[in-house]
């Protein structure tokens, strides 16, 4: 540790000032915009925003999809992470590589694939019509299901990674021990695995939930204007309606959610040390 404070500040401050001027200041002004009116400070931006049915729908839909995606990712994530953690070290490394591989690919590319799968002439519709289950192609794109699938595929690796690292902390013998002592798999999961991995679940859940909440590309491509989420609504408010007060309200909602999630993650990280 060096104690020359002036030298240290000279090194650290350029980055901090850059972030402050280019980031915190403009975002702060944007957030304050909803509170200003000709008559001074006001909350009417917020009350107006939440009084519109469309905005309520979009707000609730965004939360709902966030919870559904995080919940489903947790269920599949536990099954996958548990299976992966039982593999031999070499196989585990390879499968782990395949799980994180999608994270390096552009979200545009990953979302675009779902158009091929769910489109009018996509794989699913071809199969449905071919098998005689549907007379004409059904609309799968621009539905909540499409957005749900896209988000799930986008963020599931984060859940699996978090759960896998939590499972490393389960002592090897506790599960066989619980089994020998008469616990069924249901009990093993809820009494042994879950308590020992709940930190990983919270970390993964928070990452997936905030990821889904603040996603733009997936709802834009797979939901369009039929299935708006908060980010696509924000884009529309600015580019179509020129409504910067609503945009500012949405920005505030997104930042509060993201900030809370980050506080939670930070607390878990410090509790661990």
């Amino acid at each position, binding site marked *: *540790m*060096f104690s*020359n*404070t002036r*030298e240290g*500040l000279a*090194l*650290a401050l*350029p*980055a*901090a000032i*850059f*972030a402050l001027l*280019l*980031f*915190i*200041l*403009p*975002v702060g*002004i*944007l957030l304050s915009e909803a509170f200003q009116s000709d008559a001074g400070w006001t909350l009417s931006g917020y009350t107006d925003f939440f009084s519109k049915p469309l905005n309520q729908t979009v707000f609730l839909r965004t939360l709902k999809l966030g919870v559904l995606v995080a919940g489903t990712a947790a269920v*599949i994530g536990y*099954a*996958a992470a548990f*299976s992966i953690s*039982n593999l031999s070290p070499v196989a585990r490394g390879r499968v782990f590589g*395949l*799980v*994180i*591989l*999608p994270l*390096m*690919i*552009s*979200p*545009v*590319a*990953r979302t*675009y*694939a*779902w158009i*091929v*799968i769910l*489109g009018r*002439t*996509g*794989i699913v519709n071809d199969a449905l019509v071919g098998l005689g289950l549907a007379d004409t192609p059904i609309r799968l794109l621009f539905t909540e299901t499409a957005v749900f699938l896209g988000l799930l*595929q986008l963020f599931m690796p984060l859940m699996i990674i978090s759960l896998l690292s939590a499972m490393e902390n389960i002592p090897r013998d506790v599960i066989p021990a619980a089994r020998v002592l008469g616990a069924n798999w249901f009990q093993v999961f809820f009494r042994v695995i879950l308590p020992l991995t709940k930190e990983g679940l919270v970390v993964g859940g928070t990452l997936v939930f905030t990821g889904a909440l*603040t996603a*733009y*590309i997936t709802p*834009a491509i797979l939901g369009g204007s039929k299935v708006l989420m908060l*980010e696509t609504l*924000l*884009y529309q408010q600015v580019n179509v309606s020129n409504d*910067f007060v609503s945009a500012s309200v949405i*920005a505030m909602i997104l*930042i509060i959610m*993201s900030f809370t999630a*980050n506080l939670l993650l930070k607390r878990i990280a410090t509790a661990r040390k």
Partner: protein
Amino acid sequence: MKNLTSWAIIGLTLIFLIGPFIIIIFAGASAGESLAFPPDGLSLRWYLKVFTIESFRQSFVLSMGLAIFGTLAALLLGIPAAYALNRYELPGAETIRTVVASPIIVPGIIVGLALLRYMVIPLDVTVTVALFMAHTALVLPYAVRVVSSSLNNLRSDMEEAAVLLGCTRLQAFTKVVLPNIRGGVLAAFILGFVTSFNQVPVSLFLSGPGVRTLPIDMLAYMEITYDPSVAALSALLAFMSLAIVFIAERLLGFSRYV
């Protein structure tokens, strides 16, 4: 039996995660006019056509430039900051850390909008400059974090010894510290590059005539046509990212920094 169930679960999960990517590769290799899977015959025509689309070429150059220079700028700001936060007792270190990390917490679309409203329009800054600033800010938290973690692993008595032996602080940094954190810096560069290159929300509002990042250009192109060229381009870009990460992993065990 238990093994079989395990592999079935892993297999299904991997199909869900990677299957769409494989579909994209083949959909882009279609010989037909429209996007379909299975493709109507195989050909490389769409993979080749991508290179002849002028707007893709322009936006590719812009995205490359932003990713390279934005990340370099973030490292120029981030390395000294990470060093100071690790090695000096600073007043308000926690505040500085939070401020520098803030771009990770604020959703990108908000940053783009804020910069457009309060920098590009009132200060008459060009969109390209705003994009450069935004991408630098976006990569800064990663640069600080990755470089910090590699500084953490480097004992500070080495540079103290160098100073005692007559180096100036700067020489101690360039001759002792920098060579030792080279891997971390390179990892930060790669992580920053991939993050910046694939970034959409920040750049959404920051586009002007002839100035669009590649992912934004692809989104715009998708709205006009459904031909397989976007699939082909997506596959090419994915291969590029994977190649970079693969080489990085081979050279320096990239994954331990992320």
